[in-house]
């Protein structure tokens, strides 16, 4: 028997190019839609599991506090600087535009505060957190996936959603709310300074809470909680679905930032709409 005969008898007829061909045209569109639906279902499943483990999961002393430090304390300077400048820019631009129509800027502070409470502080703050916190969560969990640490967790009967995602989920909800509240204060403070410096608005006039009602506070708080929940779930899902090596981690990080930001915008639309229907404009 020749070597070639031996080879074919033991290995058999292997088609080395038996790659599954990528779909084209309409099939590609259908495949993309299916992929989107599957990803949506998986994301939903991760969210439900996270909620389940938040109630029933294993308690790890210090895990939530550590994540609160990572998510909260380490984002503080970044968020405050951004919101400080946003406050200055908005009041400056609003002041200039308003002065073209009416010379009276006495309600600038009141409207600015309502805008901050109802929408702007939560949305801008959450978008900033989506870039910093979302990227961090996806990179950390993604690198654990490619180094098989997540598989090792599963082998030890530790669900990665319980072990990795739940502490980040709880910490993110708490810290997003706290950070955004503080950041709103910073933005209002810098806005007040801008009003005084450029438009000569007395700070006592600027600090006017007459336009902020319970509806604004409810909508603002709901947004903080929803964004705080969405960022770690979306980013964690991106991290857990990492595939490949360091390139895969890079893609997961990019997807986490894009998808977390998108989720903030979409949630903003729905919560604002619901708030408008319930509390009015």
């Amino acid at each position, binding site marked *: 028997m020749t070597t070639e005969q031996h080879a074919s008898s033991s290995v*058999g007829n*292997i088609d080395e190019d038996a*790659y599954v061909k990528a779909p084209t045209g309409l099939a590609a569109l259908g495949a993309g839609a299916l992929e989107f639906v599957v990803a949506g279902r998986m994301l939903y499943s991760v969210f439900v599991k996270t909620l389940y483990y938040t109630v029933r999961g294993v308690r790890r002393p210090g895990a939530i506090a550590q994540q609160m430090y990572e998510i909260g304390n380490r984002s503080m300077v970044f968020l405050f600087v951004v919101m400080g400048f946003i406050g200055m820019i908005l009041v400056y631009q609003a002041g200039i535009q308003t002065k073209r129509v009416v010379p009276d800027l006495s309600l600038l502070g009141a409207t600015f505060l309502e805008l901050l409470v109802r929408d702007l502080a939560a949305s801008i703050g959450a978008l900033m957190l989506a870039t910093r916190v979302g990227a961090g969560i996806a990179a950390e969990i993604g690198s654990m996936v490619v*180094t*098989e*640490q997540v*598989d090792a967790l599963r082998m*030890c009967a*530790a*669900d990665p959603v319980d072990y990795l995602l739940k502490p980040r989920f709880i910490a993110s909800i708490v810290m997003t709310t706290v950070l955004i509240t503080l950041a709103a204060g910073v933005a209002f403070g810098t806005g007040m300074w801008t009003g005084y410096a450029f438009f000569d608005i007395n700070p006592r006039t600027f600090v006017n809470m007459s336009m902020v009602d319970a509806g604004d506070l409810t909508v603002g708080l709901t947004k903080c909680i929803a964004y705080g929940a969405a960022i770690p779930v979306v980013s964690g899902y991106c991290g857990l679905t990492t595939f490949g090596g360091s390139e895969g981690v890079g893609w997961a990080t990019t997807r986490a930032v894009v998808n977390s930001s998108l989720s903030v915008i979409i949630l903003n639309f729905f919560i604002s709409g619901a708030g408008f229907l319930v509390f009015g404009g």
Partner: protein
Amino acid sequence: MIELRGIVKSFGRPVLRDITMHVPAGCLYGLIGPGASGKSVLLKIVTGLMRPDAGSVHIDGRDVLSMTDLELQEFRKRIGMLFQNNALFDFMTVAENIAFPLRRLFDLPEPEIRERVAERLACVSLPGFEGRMPSGLSGGQKKRVGVARATVIQAPIVLYDEPAAGLDPVTSQKIFDLLRAEQQASGATVLMVSSDLDRMLTVTDRVGMMYKGRLIFDGTTAEAYASDDPFVHQFVHGIPEGPL
């Protein structure tokens, strides 16, 4: 006993093609083959970490693929695994890494956990390394900590993915001898993947060779050495020229 039937797995291209394999109870089975032949994927399918596109996996008569997540978690108390990349948790110390399966899977008192961790570390020649972080270890030391973690629960089924990668020849032989001694003492069923053929084949009872997603040889270690199959012969004897 591990029994695989008609396992097929594809990641865009076929990775495993109709693998049927039987690892008898109490056997130390070595899985060999060139890189990217599907060995590590096969190990993950055995543990239920990865689902095949087709086929069945039975361990000690239980169908792994039909288990729910909770059943799998319970079942994994019976499986120890060393991963190819060691998979040490980089946020835990060496002792915490080794103790992790004990804490998660069993309700043991802390003094016993500490004792078993120290005993495992002594077995892999790393006594006193309890407080070190994985980032401060060499590749070989990480591998040995991984071996300690895989063996600490004394599971009846143990899977090793490259237990000697990155180790010097002496430590490598020590590790294989240790794994063999433990397997003989516990009677565990062991499925081992290693590229260090010379040393691995000194401890295995049976050998399977994979090539391009197929199991092309299954027999005793002696039969592997004596095989006249050109693929097996070339691979086992490390001959540069041949069909591989």
